[in-house]
């Protein structure tokens, strides 16, 4: 099944895109996504240690199990204001 990955800030720049589809297995947790993302975008790896996640416009814990069609965002440390 597939989820849509949204990328912001430095991660968006490194990926050179702001969205990507990722193929995942049933039962994949958000926290596991970083491995798949790291494979797809190797130059992002060192930044994935401090990333936060969101599903449907709110923060989500690493333990959240992904569902088909979820929109998952990878959020680098924030610096607004």
């Amino acid at each position, binding site marked *: 099944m597939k989820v849509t990955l*949204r990328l*912001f*800030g*430095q991660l*968006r*720049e490194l990926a050179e895109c702001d969205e990507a589809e990722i193929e995942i297995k049933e039962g994949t947790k958000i926290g596991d996504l970083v491995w798949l993302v790291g494979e797809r975008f190797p130059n992002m790896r060192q930044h994935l240690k*401090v990333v*936060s996640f*969101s599903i449907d*416009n*709110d*923060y989500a814990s690493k333990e959240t199990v992904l569902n088909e069609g979820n929109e998952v*965002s990878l*959020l*680098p*440390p*924030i*610096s*607004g*204001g």
Partner: protein
Amino acid sequence: MIELISEKISVDKILNNLEDHSTGAVVLFLGRVRDHANGRQVTRMAYEAYAEMAHKKMQEIEDEVKKRWPVQKIAMMHRTGELELGEVSVAIAVACPHRKEAFQACQFAIDTLKETVPIWKKEQFVDGEAWVEGTVPDSGITQ
């Protein structure tokens, strides 16, 4: 009033939005683009937001502020895109019956915005640019 905008932030608009005859105290915070950071000269600043989520998190801050303090009105605006030195990147204003609460509520709102609202900034230098080292979001307010 909550807005994420790419045009200049209008303080007049914010204060008009806070007009109210029952509250004696207004505290306004403005964040502006500074010309230096960590000893390096900054020439411009670019802001990027995860707009839908930023809006939602700002709404949660408004709700929390109104739960904690007798805030009658609150306005929160954050700008996105390319900003010049001295331009306002964020504005938060609250109106309360008394000033002590107004200061507390406004400070809580900007502190929480910086901890929870997904926005990123990139400093532009004379000779390059760099994403500002940020904070790992404290999602406590929502969980």
